[in-house]
Structures are given as C-alpha cells and as structure tokens.
C-alpha cells in the first residue's frame, strides 16, 4: 500500500474564460440595467417620434406621480395613448415572453440533458398554438390562455410518452418524439385553418403560427407577467436541482433528488409557462433554444446562474427583436417569429455542428 497517488501534471493555463470570472451578481445587475434602458429606449422607437423624457413622464403620470417633478415631460393625450396603451404594454409583453421562453428552454435543456430542447422543438409551442387557434375559431376567445396551457401540456405529454414508451428518455428519443408531435400538431393546426378560415382569420392565425406581439395590451402583460411571477420565479430557483442532473438520472438520484417527480413537476411548469407565453404572443421559436446557450457561453454552465441570466437576456432579446419587427419595414409589420428564426436558425445549425453530446 505504498502511495501510488500520481502527482498530476500542472494544468495548462486556461485562456479565454476570463468572462466566467465575472461574478454572477455583476451579470444580473448589468443585464437588469440593460433591460430597463431597453424598455425605455424601445418605447421611443416607432412611427410616432417620442422622446425619452416623454416616456418617463407618461410612466410617472400613470403611476400617480407628478411627471414634471422627476424630470419627466407632460404629453398630449394622443401621445400618451401611444406610449401607455400601445408601446409600453407591447414592450412589457415582449420582455415577459422572452424571459418566459428562455427560462423554459433552460429548464428543458437541463432536465432532458439535451442541448436542443426548447418549448418549440419539443412541440409545446405548436400544441399551445393549436389550443389557441381552436378556441379562436370556435369563438371562445376568453378561454385562450387556458386552451394554450392545455395544448402545451398535451403536446408535452405526447412527446414524453412517445419518447419514453420504449425505454429511457434519451435526448435523441426526446427530440425525435418532439419532432413527431410538433409536426402532428402543426398539421392539425393547418388543417383547422384550411377548413374554416376566411379573410382576416388567416392573418390572425398566421401571426399565431409565426408569433406576433402586435395585439399585446395590458391584459397580455397581466398574463405574461403573472405567469412569470407565479411559475417563472420559482423555476429560477431550481438551479441546484437542475445541476444535479448533469451526470444523469442515477447520479441525480444518488444526490438525493427524486428524479421522476422532479422531472414531471419541472416539465409541467415549463408547459404552463410556455402556454401562457404562446397565449399572448403566438409560437415564437428559437428564443428558448438560443438564449440559454448564449448565456452559458459567457457565464458558464451552472444553472443557478444561467436561469436568471437567461430570463433577463431573453427579455432584452425579444424587446429588440420585436422592436425590429415593428419598425424595420414600417409601416408593415413582420411576425416576430420570422426575425427570431432568422437569428435562431443559424445558431441552431451551429449547435448541431458543435454538440458532441447529441447521439
């Protein structure tokens, strides 16, 4: 029993990871600042030229404060309406949806140990869209969020049951099952549209399928922000649990995690969150896929850090993508999903090329 402990060679200095030495709290503060600035600045952009001081004044006024006292400017009722009834709720909705989708993607990627998992790819978004489109065509618009929840949950269950039917939930099986479910729900949605849509319904449904925030008012803010508070905030605190899955189910279980209950609970939560977001914005792809990866590139892989940062980055990202969607081809407006796909698809391709984990 002589000491055969090898003295490991000195590790080579590891360059190019200096960003990861930035403390996570600094990232949170930085991104929160960028988010606030993005909200205020993006409100000023659009056909009607509005100054930041007016935005500030409108916000102060609606919070019951004296606009001029804190450096704000008083607006005419028309301009105030543009700020407070059109742009502010739309931008807040974009922030909530971006945060919610990015959070859902982060959780799904961690819990399925699948770098390609996101609400869009595993069929949740298309399930939610089908639910939404169905109630719109049936004329039960009030049930929209509920139907979207139900659709997302149904798609999730279908994907997981299909993936797990013949054994363990491997990443490959999960993605393939998600593809099947997504195609099926997409096909049924198209069928429903073809069968019943006329005139303007087409445009509305198109914006459901590609995503659009153009109709987002304060009710949308309430749904998006409410879901973010009730479902998203607790999800943000599950980082340690998600980290425990890094080496698989057995390792997680040996670390004291109840693997199956945890997985179902967290995936159901992501379905609820996704459902709420699709209900107010349609199915916007790629946000849940690319934002978590972008965050991991700069802040490392620990989910306790990645979750809040993904939420913040997702919010900022979608605010600017949506600002682009409503201003780039002014006066025409792009469905926001087109822009997220333009940015997201190449990133997705890069991930495919890089991810050694996908088998």
């Amino acid at each position, binding site marked *: *029993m002589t000491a*055969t402990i090898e003295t490991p060679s000195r590790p080579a200095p590891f360059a190019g990871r200096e960003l990861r030495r930035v403390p996570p709290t600094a990232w949170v503060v930085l991104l929160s600042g960028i988010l606030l600035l993005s909200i205020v600045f993006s409100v000023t952009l659009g056909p009607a030229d509005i100054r930041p001081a007016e935005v500030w004044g409108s916000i102060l006024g609606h919070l019951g404060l004296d606009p001029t006292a804190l450096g704000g400017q008083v607006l005419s009722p028309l301009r105030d309406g543009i700020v407070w009834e059109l742009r502010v709720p739309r931008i807040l909705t974009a922030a909530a949806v971006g945060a919610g989708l990015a959070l859902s993607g982060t959780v799904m990627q961690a819990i399925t140990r699948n770098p390609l998992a996101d609400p869009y790819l595993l069929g949740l978004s298309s399930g939610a869209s089908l639910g939404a489109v169905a109630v719109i065509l049936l004329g039960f618009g009030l049930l929209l969020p509920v139907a979207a929840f139900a659709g997302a949950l149904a798609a999730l269950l279908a994907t997981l049951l299909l993936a797990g039917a013949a054994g363990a939930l491997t990443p490959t099986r999960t993605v393939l099952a998600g593809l099947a479910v997504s195609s099926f729900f997409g096909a049924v949605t198209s069928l429903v549209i073809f069968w019943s849509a006329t005139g303007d319904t087409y445009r509305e449904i198109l914006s459901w399928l590609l995503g659009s925030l153009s109709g987002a008012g304060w009710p949308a803010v309430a749904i998006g922000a409410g879901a973010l508070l009730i479902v998203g905030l607790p999800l943000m605190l599950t980082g340690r649990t998600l980290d425990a899955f890094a080496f698989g189910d057995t*390792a997680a279980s040996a*670390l004291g995690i*109840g693997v199956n209950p945890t997985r179902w609970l967290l995936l159901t939560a992501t379905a609820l969150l996704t459902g709420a977001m699709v209900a107010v914005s349609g199915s916007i792809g790629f946000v849940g896929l690319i934002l978590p990866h972008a965050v991991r590139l700069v802040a490392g892989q620990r989910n306790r850090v990645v979750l809040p940062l993904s939420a913040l980055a997702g919010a900022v990202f979608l605010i600017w993508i949506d600002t682009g969607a409503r201003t780039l081809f002014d006066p025409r407006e792009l469905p926001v999903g087109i822009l997220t796909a333009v940015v997201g698809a190449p990133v997705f391709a890069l991930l495919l090329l890089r991810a050694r984990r996908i088998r």
Partner: protein
Amino acid sequence: MTRTESAHGLGDAISAAPPAALAASRLTFSRDGRLVIDGVDVDLPVGSFGAVIGPNGAGKSTLLQLLVGALPVDSGTVLFDGADLLALRRRDRARLVALSEQHGDGDTGLRVNDVVLLGRTPHIGRWASEGPADRQVVADALSAVGMSAFADRPFDTLSGGERQRVHLARALAQQPRLLLLDEPTNHLDVRAQLSLLSLVRAQTAAGITAVAALHDLNIAAAYADTVIVLGEGRVVAAGPTASVLTGKLIGDVYGVRADVLRHPRTGRPLIAFDTT
C-alpha cells in the same frame, strides 16, 4: 497502514468480525419481468472494502443502484449501522451513501469545482446557497484525490483517470459513510487504476465503508477485504477475498481456467489466467 495490513494478511480469515456496517438482505429487483437481482445479501464491517465481481450482466451495477436507492427494490432491506437506508428520505440517504459511477463521456461544461460541489446537494437547503463550510468540504475532497490544482479546469478537458478522481471527490464531498463505486477503474491505465484504488483504501482506513463493482479480478484481489461474487443476479460466493477467489470459483463463474497464485511481496491472491 499497519491496521490495513493486518486486515489484509493472506488467509487471515476474519474470525471475530466487527458488527456489520452494511447489511443488505434478500434484495430482489426485476426489470421488464426479468429477475435481475435475486435474493442478494451483502454484509460488510465498518471501514472495509467490498468488491462486487461477476461477469457482464450479473447485476453488479444494478446492485449498487439498489443500495444507493436510485432503483426501487422489489423486496429486501438495506441496513447501514442499524438504520433502514431504504426507508430514509432521499436527501437523508444521500448524506450517508454516495455513488461514483462510470461515465463514458461528459459534455457538461462544468468546471471541476462545480462538479465536486454537486456532492453538497443533499447538504445545502434547496433554495440556499453554498456556504464557506461547503466550499471547504469541496476543497478538502479535491485535495484528498490530489486534484486541487485542477479546480478551475473545465471537467470535459480532463483525462479518464482525472475524471474518475473528480467523481470520487464529488462522492467524498457528500461526506458519506458508505461509498459505492461502479467500475471505478474502467478505461484507466494501470497507474491511474492503482492510484484510484489507493485513494479508496485511504478512505476506508478513515472509517468509510466502500463497495466497488469491479471487472478486474486482480484489482479486486489486491485491494478488497471481502469479495461478493454475483452470477445471474445471485450471490455465488461471498467472504474474505483470499478464501473466495479460487481457481474453481473463477472457472465456474467466468468459464475460464485460472490459477490463483500468491503475490510474492504482498502475499495477496494473484490470478493467472490459463490462455493455452
């Protein structure tokens, strides 16, 4: 050192065995209607090192997963120090028992320090952050396996031997009293194998009870106090290494001819396979 040496003496049958630390009895587990573990007993005294050996598919990994509670037993009990392990809450169990698995590849993106910190999961409140005490445990675990200098390295850049050490450190960071290792020497060169098992022996010398599923019979012969031989989910033989590892047993279980010699310097069993 002297303590381990005396416990290792060849043919030194444990006459007055200390009370069993680990006492698993009549464990059964079936998967897809097939009995994978069929009435298995495991008895190990405190601070001993038990090797589970047997051919592929004998149920070695499954047995470890049953002991750690990652798979549910169909029937049977696992007592550790008199406590019913399987009745404990997961988190409480994870503070007593740790499992270091074999992992072919990793693309986790985690740094070594983060991987070892995972071992603190059952000790840290679900919504809490790790404290200085946890970081100290992590540092100690890394130092115990000689990997302190690698703390900031990405785990995925490590060699197989280094990874196994980090997994061992992760298990040690759980501060377990029962350490389970699933084929810890797979894919390691001989130096890394010996080094890893020395680390395990250092832990058992400190009072941790260890159970390792091993493929290499000579590694088991050189390091284990007790050998549990599994064949098709049943215990074929169990007991002190020197008395269990015989040419006949190896022939019966693995279907190969082997002579069990005596190591010229350690006096421990040495298995020579007949390849003619």
